[in-house]
């Protein structure tokens, strides 16, 4: 027998679709835990900072308008990051569930891309659900209709960057380091992302401003405010977009490389 063996005409794209569908399908069944995970923490942030402190008079009345775009950005970015990192750490160390997909007839890098895409999707949903919640809790917050489309695009881009960073972290952190992951990586990312304050306002706190400029989340928050509260001084949108696209490329590459390292011995 010299003829080549027949292989089923499965296209990688179809396989990619099935792999993505598996994750969506599983999320669909665990919708409530997922929503609890993404809503509770930002809800309290919004409530305490945007409502309680405002009504007590400790922060200015227009603070809510500055806070909400930042919290939506944070939820999209961090939601994508966590939803990419956590399953990866568990998958590679403990459950090994991912092996079945690593043996599917698609390039392994595509599985990494799928994981990031799905993480970003969860982050995007997490950001979206915060918007109506914000409107309900906060007083006097209005988003101009013309800003909605650019805002959605910024949230998507922010979620993709978050997922790419999540892939990089998830493939480089050992499972026993999960505890310090929160303290050493997630917390600093959360508080240096210019989500609770406009970056331009940090001029008198120069060193902190420089640190915040290193966090890609800053550019998601700033781009959001540029669209929603343009009167507040902000980084130009084109700079934000440029940085986000570059971060997406950089961390995406690092993440895929890390994934290949973990998936192949």
């Amino acid at each position, binding site marked *: 027998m010299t003829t080549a*063996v027949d292989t089923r*005409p499965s296209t*990688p794209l179809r396989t990619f679709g*099935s792999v993505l569908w*598996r994750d969506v399908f599983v999320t669909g*069944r665990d919708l409530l835990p997922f929503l609890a995970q993404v809503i509770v923490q930002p809800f309290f942030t919004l409530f305490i900072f945007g409502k309680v402190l405002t009504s007590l008079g400790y922060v200015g009345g227009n603070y809510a308008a500055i806070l909400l775009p930042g919290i939506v950005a944070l939820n999209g970015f961090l939601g994508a990051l966590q939803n990419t990192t956590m399953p990866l750490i568990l998958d590679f160390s403990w459950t090994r569930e991912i092996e*079945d997909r690593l*043996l599917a*007839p698609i390039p392994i890098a595509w599985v990494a891309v799928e994981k990031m895409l799905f993480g970003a999707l969860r982050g995007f949903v997490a950001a979206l659900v915060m918007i109506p919640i914000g409107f309900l809790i906060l007083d006097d917050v209005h988003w101009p209709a013309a800003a909605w489309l650019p805002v959605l695009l910024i949230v998507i881009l922010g979620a993709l960057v978050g997922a790419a960073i999540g892939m990089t972290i998830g493939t480089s952190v050992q499972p026993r380091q999960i505890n310090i992951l929160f303290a050493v990586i997630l917390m600093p990312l959360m508080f240096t992302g210019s989500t609770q304050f406009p970056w331009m306002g940090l001029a008198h706190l120069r060193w902190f401003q420089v640190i915040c400029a290193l966090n890609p989340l800053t550019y998601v928050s700033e781009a959001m405010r540029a669209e929603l509260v343009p009167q507040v001084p902000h980084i130009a949108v084109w700079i934000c977009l440029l940085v986000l696209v570059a971060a997406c490329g950089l961390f995406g590459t690092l993440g895929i490389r890390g994934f290949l390292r973990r998936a192949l*011995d």
Partner: protein
Amino acid sequence: MKAVEVTDLVKVYKKNPKPAVDGLSFTAEPGEVFGLLGPNGAGKTSTIGVLTTRVLPTSGTARVYGVDVLRESRRARQLLAVVPQRNNLDRSLSIRQNLLFHAAYHGVPRAERTARADEILTRMGLADRAKDRIEMVSGGQAQRIMIARALMHRPRVMFLDEPSTGLDPQARLFVHDRIRDLRAEGVTVVLTTHDMDEAGKLCDRIGIVDHGKLLALDTPAALTRGLPGSTTVSVTVNLVASDAEVVEKALAGIEGVERVEKIAAAAGGPPPGALPAGLPPAALAAIAAKAAESAGAAGTGQFRLYTGLDAAVILPAVLRVLGDSACEVTDLSIGTPSLEDVFIHLTGRELR
């Protein structure tokens, strides 16, 4: 075309300078059950890892039905299926969904995968548990589900890494039966094991591996036959009408007999040095008992013949020679070495 073709395979892991696989070469024919037998850490799992596209070889090639697993890993993955050592089933899905999603990843059309899942679940005795979550299943059931899942995309080669380690006897026999089914369907099976009985029962051919090198490769029967002086024939004869020396000489003259030992007729057992190394203790005890027993009976002699040939080949000649010498045969026993003797002979006794 060979079903599996491994050529000069070398795998060196970063953390360990000693190669896990060290120049391994072997082939498996389509439809055969091929066993990789070796102690822990011999390089079996690494070899399977390379063949299933999950481990990158340091050098050498591996092909599955002519498809290079390194260069065309995507095509190779369509041809092969893996049943791993550890449970890696999707815990978020039910048993049936595990099968369905696996088939979807492999591009099996929806109608076909539904029908096939039901058929395989029935065959694997899992039909009534199809909707159960994976968390609820036992080790033996997980193994069955992983075999069922592997079958979903109709692989041409199935790799099973230690398929029955940790299973109870029932689950083990079930897995053995399924492996025989696969063989009957023409699916090539490559399995790793350190269970000699399993290898001997299931495999058409066995490659014995240690320290990443292939030490021997043959059918189970040929492997045991190949052990030097492997088969023994012990005869007890009545020496009233003949001389022991003459009988011994006549027996030694038979073609294929490597040496003859006169064991009994005198008091005491055989000197320990005369026995081949590596005989199981049970055999030694039996020999000693036999010697003591025959020492009591006057006029009898016991001889042991060592041969590399099959007992069936050598026996007629032995009986003819004894008949010619007018010796009455009162007892006769055949000792064949087990695969375990071959394994220990090749890989040594030290613990891993």
